[in-house]
């Protein structure tokens, strides 16, 4: 569906995307995971055939966006990072107007709009003003709008950023349904839990380049241990304690607010810590996540 080879986007001298390559197969759910400013949105705009690439090759549904922009876009659904619903129109009107942009007949758009309002759980808001919707509802409406043309690929740029936990879970549920129905998804996120839930495969991006590629579980296995022990000794003591526990676990990361000990067995590491006479304020043993993969690859946390 999507083949990107050495994709580059430069703004004057600055390369926002600097030689990115990936492939997305039909029905696959593919993620770009990285912090803000990693070049995810720029990549999405190039794949969305609205931003011209500086170099490299890009093929979407077998077409080159430089030549077949409108044709590619006719088969995409796009959920941008910031909602760009028309606030001068009502909820249902937003879908009606947008459907026309795909050259669809009015009757067909109207039918589809009602189905999608149902899917987005917005049927009773059909006549509301857009500004009267909550953040989560706006997001769902944006997703419904992106599905109006029954797209072959759905592009989601930070789909749940800025939403409260409940709204995120509703949205994930909707996206998961789409995935089950076989829609190809390409999404960017800086939330590791989102990436783990929704992506079959992902690339970790930082500063415009790909750091790693694989399935979430595979990446965790490759770049992290099974478990992580998180310890807090208080911000003044963390660095000092770090010296005393050097050598424990497979690897230790000292962050400003906590110490992470990577190990196959977090509990037994904790026992060793206590035996060494150290008493952390809090301790937590958890499963390794993509956050740890990112930390390992870049030396930084995803959300700073």
């Amino acid at each position, binding site marked *: 569906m999507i083949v990107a080879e050495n994709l580059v986007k430069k703004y004057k001298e600055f390369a926002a995307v600097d030689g990115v390559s990936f492939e997305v197969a*039909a029905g696959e759910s593919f993620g770009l995971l990285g912090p803000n400013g990693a070049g995810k949105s720029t990549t999405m705009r190039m794949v969305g055939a609205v931003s011209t690439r500086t170099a490299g090759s890009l093929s979407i549904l*077998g077409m*080159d966006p430089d030549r077949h922009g409108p044709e590619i876009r006719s*088969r995409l659904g*796009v959920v941008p990072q910031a909602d760009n619903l*028309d606030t001068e129109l009502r909820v249902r009107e937003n879908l009606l107007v947008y459907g026309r942009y795909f050259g669809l007949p009015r009757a067909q758009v109207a039918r589809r709009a009602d189905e999608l309002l149902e899917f987005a759980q917005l049927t009773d808001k059909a006549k509301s003003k857009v500004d009267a919707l909550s953040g989560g509802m706006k997001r769902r409406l944006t997703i419904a709008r992106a599905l109006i043309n029954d797209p072959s690929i759905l592009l989601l740029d930070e789909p749940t950023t800025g939403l409260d936990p409940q709204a995120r879970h509703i949205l994930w549920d909707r996206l998961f349904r789409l995935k089950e129905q076989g829609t*190809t998804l390409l999404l960017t996120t800086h939330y590791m839990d989102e990436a783990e839930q929704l992506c079959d495969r992902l690339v970790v991006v930082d500063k415009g380049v790909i750091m790693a590629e694989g399935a979430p579980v595979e990446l965790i296995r490759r770049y992290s241990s099974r478990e992580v022990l998180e310890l807090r000794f208080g911000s003044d003591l963390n660095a000092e304690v770090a010296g005393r526990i050097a050598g424990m676990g497979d690897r230790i990361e000292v962050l400003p607010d906590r110490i992470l000990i990577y190990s196959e067995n977090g509990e037994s590491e904790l026992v060793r810590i206590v035996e060494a006479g150290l008493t952390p304020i809090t301790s937590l043993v958890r499963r390794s996540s993509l956050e740890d993969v990112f930390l390992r690859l870049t030396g930084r946390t995803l959300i700073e």
Partner: protein
Amino acid sequence: MSADPQGTVPTSARRGDPGQGEITPAPGSVGDRAIRSTRRIRRWGSWYVAEHRFLSLRAYAQTVVVTAFGNPIIYLYAMGVGLATLVDANLGTDAVGGVSYLAFVAPALLCSAAIAVATEEFTYPIMLGFKWNPVFFAMNAAPIQPGQIINGIVIAVAVRMFVACGIFYAFMVLFGAVPSGAGFIAVGVALLTGLGFGTLLMAYAATLTEDTGQLAMVMRLIILPMTLFSGTFFPLGVLPIWLQWIGWISPLWHGTELARVFAYGGSEPLWLSVLHVLYLAVLLAFGWAAARSITARRLNK
């Protein structure tokens, strides 16, 4: 929701074959079908945008209706009846080229009405579409091309302007301000004037990324003086020669003079009438093209 297993990239498209830069989708694939079905959008996209604008117009329908009827009544009455009593009583018809002051001022007011619509539609709504209610980006994420967005806006505004000028003209006839039978052509002239000036304004508005009062400035320093010094309320010749240039470059002056030719047979050499048309047409073409290319650049981030 379609997964479309046939949508897989044909082998020819993989790895951007260096020798053959062209990527073409395989026959029968999603891409191939998209190319055929998108022809309609390439042809009609501008109209879809216009359709959208008409729907948006409903949000401020009241303003549209009130100005369309209020404008001619107020201005024709104030200038064409009120002020005219003074002018005609003191100077007779010699003052303004052998016609009543009402007949003289009405075509100018008609063209100003077109400028008023242009000023309303080609300024803040353009900034809005890029910035505060960024629907242009949404349209462009669909198969609509930047040029089609601009075309659609021009179409929608032209329709609104045509209706407003038509209503204005009807009031001119009611007020007895149109001696000539060919007067209705002045509506077309007003439309050309409004769009000639308006597309330039649109191109400028499309360049604005921050509102630091530029548009308010344009209204005060360009549009208001243009209305006053374009031979609207008095012939341009009354002004000292060093101020007359304002009229010569003013689309409103060119439009007004041409409208007068049709409304009451205002006398001017034919070459000058041709020049009016050419000048306005050039502005229109330039403004339109500039707005299209500025929009294309701005949407391609």
